[in-house]
């Protein structure tokens, strides 16, 4: 079952043709990795799924992106609800300059999902879902900046989980973290895929191999290959993919 699907997706930033005819299917409740060399458009691709590219001036899109069968670029789409359903975690952890509790409670308050006691439950559930609860349960009112980098990133994941998303987009979530934090988050990603659809952009081939069920290889804005991760890494169909993953070009 395809949770997210792009059809003939083309995207321009002013005159720059960043995504070229991308047709990609994302399976539900699985982890899909999007990999490719720098500048190939992988961040742009996932940002097209929650329309975060809209905030960049000069952005033009043709083609369709379907989430649960509905084209999100259709007129009249509620972009704010879309971004709630399709959450995002960024490369550098970016918690708000508020307390740990307030960070997680931010989303639910805005979308009026919960209040008062129910809000406390939502915050706890989200922090548990991000494998962070045990470490912060006694200091929910401390500022988010008192957490380590890896903890801050898990906080950002909890923050995204708090608004009850269906899809979680992750843009190189571990690239600013040390190996131990990275390992914890990778484990978390696998757990998350049981309930959510996860799409992760990564530079790190081994991470893509470790963490994902499916892998898409993007090169200069085009989708070169897509398939089950194990098969793609053992015996890629495209010569370009082979060259990229064996490091014969960066």
């Amino acid at each position: 079952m395809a949770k997210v699907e792009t059809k003939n997706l083309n995207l321009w930033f002013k005159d720059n043709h960043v995504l070229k005819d991308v047709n990609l299917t994302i399976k539900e409740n699985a982890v899909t990795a999007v990999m490719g060399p720098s500048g190939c458009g992988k961040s742009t691709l996932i940002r097209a799924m929650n329309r975060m590219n809209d905030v960049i001036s000069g952005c033009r899109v043709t083609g369709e992106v379907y989430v649960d069968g509905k084209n999100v670029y259709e007129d009249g789409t509620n972009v704010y609800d879309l971004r709630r359903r399709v959450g995002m975690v960024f490369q550098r952890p970016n918690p708000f300059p508020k307390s740990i509790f307030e960070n997680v409670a931010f989303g639910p308050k805005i979308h009026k999902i919960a209040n008062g006691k129910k809000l406390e439950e939502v915050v706890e559930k989200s922090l548990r879902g991000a494998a962070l609860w045990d470490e912060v349960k006694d200091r929910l009112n401390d500022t988010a900046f008192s957490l380590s980098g890896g903890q801050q990133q898990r906080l950002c994941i909890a923050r995204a989980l708090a608004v009850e998303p269906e899809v979680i987009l992750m843009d190189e979530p571990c690239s600013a973290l040390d190996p131990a934090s990275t390992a914890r988050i990778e484990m978390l990603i696998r757990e998350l895929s049981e309930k959510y659809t996860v799409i992760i952009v990564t530079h790190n081939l081994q991470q893509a191999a470790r963490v994902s069920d499916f892998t898409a290889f993007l090169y200069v804005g085009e989708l070169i290959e897509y398939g089950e991760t194990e098969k793609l890494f053992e015996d890629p169909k495209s010569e370009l993919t082979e060259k990229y993953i064996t490091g014969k070009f960066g």
Partner: protein
Amino acid sequence: MVRLLDAGLEQLTVMVYKSGEAAKSALNMAFRGFMNGKDAMDDVRDLSDVISSMTVEIENKAFELIVKYQPVASDLRIINSYMKIAYNFERYGRYAWDLSFTHKKLGALGECAVASDLMPKLVEKVSEMVSKSVEALRQHDAELAKTLADTEKEVDDLYFAYLDQLSKARAQSKCVMCNLLVSRYLERIADHTTYVGEAIVYIATGEKISLR
């Protein structure tokens, strides 16, 4: 683009190929001794020991490359296959020694090879397969490797025909015992060349096939 892995991969390739050449020599030595009724045991044993230690080195090298470079795709298939192939070459060497040992101890270095018309044919076919396997390795030639399947069939037929022949032998002689074992070794060597062939096909095409 040259990668850090490439130097190691080249070294590994050379090591495996050398091991193949050594295994081929060992077998040729053993075959010659057997066909001519000459004693080749000591030389073959020395060479077989060398091949064994080469196999250990090859495994170590392959592990080093895996740990350091986390290879994928064709690189991974090559390294994986080389380890398999090295093991099979070690088996070639081991059977070469078994053959010359059996010829000396059991067959008393008699002219057992020519006791039957089938035996020389068997030796020739197997020798051909061994050469092919080493050549196919050198070129990563999947097509050449695949032809081993046909020859393997011929070897199997010859083997069973010979067993049949032996079972009808009148006299119990040293050569009968020797040839019984030698024919078995030859059949096993043929099997091992097909394993090498399968590994070569996997390197080249990523397919896992059976050549028997």
